[in-house]
């Protein structure tokens, strides 16, 4: 039996090319401390391009592929809506504004040898960004209605990465096959119970 489906999946909206680009500009521009939380917010909550489940699946693929996972997701989501142009627009959108700001910071650094004293502000923003990422993960767990073994695997992955500090490729290599097997078993596609 598959896991219970979403009771009423919210209707999704297909973005135009411009909307795709601007959405990704927003994700890049607001993404202090990383873009993962903003990407989900803009794509799932604000603009409804993808359902919670679709987005989580694209992000999962972005995670196992090398490279930045939200960047990989941008390529795949852009391609889904507008082919090569979409992939280029989404990728360009997410990196353009941050690159401009980064160039400005480099120029400041070049000129003064250090950045203006913004450490306390950045520390406060970094703490808020950390909470934002944790809150996003909690929100996704609440909405995805994962099976019990999937929740267990989620916690094992988090524990391995945050406490044991195992390398991410190792975690993905060890847990992804296990998790895929568990998911196939739950869908009734393999009969043998996945060991965990």
């Amino acid at each position, binding site marked *: 039996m598959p896991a219970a489906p979403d009771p009423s999946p919210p209707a999704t909206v297909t973005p135009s090319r411009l909307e795709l680009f601007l959405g990704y500009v927003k994700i890049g*521009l607001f993404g202090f401390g990383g873009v993962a939380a903003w990407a989900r917010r803009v794509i799932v909550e604000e603009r409804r391009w993808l359902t919670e489940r679709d987005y*989580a699946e694209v992000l999962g693929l972005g*995670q196992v592929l090398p490279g930045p*996972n939200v960047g990989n997701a941008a390529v795949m989501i852009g391609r889904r809506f507008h082919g090569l142009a979409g992939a280029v627009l989404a990728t360009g959108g997410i990196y353009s504004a941050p690159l401009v700001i980064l160039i400005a910071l480099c120029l400041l650094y070049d000129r003064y040898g250090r*950045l203006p004293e913004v450490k306390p502000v950045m520390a406060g923003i970094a703490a808020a960004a950390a909470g934002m990422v944790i*809150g996003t993960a909690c929100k996704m767990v609440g909405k995805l209605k994962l099976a019990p073994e999937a929740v267990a*695997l989620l916690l094992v992955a988090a524990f391995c990465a945050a406490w044991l500090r195992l390398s991410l490729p190792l975690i993905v290599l060890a847990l992804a096959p296990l998790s895929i097997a568990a998911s196939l078993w739950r869908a009734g596609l393999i009969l043998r119970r996945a060991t965990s």
Partner: protein
Amino acid sequence: MALLLQILVTFSILSLVAVGGANAVLPEMHRQLVELRGWMDDATFSQLYALAQAAPGPNILVASVMGWRVGAWGGMAMATIGMLLPSAILAWGMAGLLHRLRGAAWLKPAQAGLVPIAVGLLLAAGLVMAEASSQFGPLPLVIVAISTLFVWRTSWSPLWVLAGGGVLGLLLLG
């Protein structure tokens, strides 16, 4: 010219081993740039990392700053292209493969199997960020807790907590 090519090659290799994104590849980036190539010392590496953190956007742009330091603006361009293009091409290919396989009954469940890993690693990234911010004492952890609840339990814009965190940091950590 040879230097720019070296930068491009170095970051292209990093791009292809960067499973888990920027934070996962940082140790290897340090090994390549500081230990193997000798392009910068430890202190510079740390400073540039902090510089990249001050900008919004994907953390992977730390590569752009490193490239800039090694080879000026050309270096920045080469590092950015090297870091982004190979993995983007892989992601493009993967999306195409999935599109071709879309009828297969096992595809959706297999893809769903990656979801717990992705969310688990997202949670871990947040926890690691929270731990890093605790070097400034207990106050950042209070900000982390408020922000977690705010983002988890409400659908208001997280800009409010980011701004609030910055203001609290300025008032209480400064």
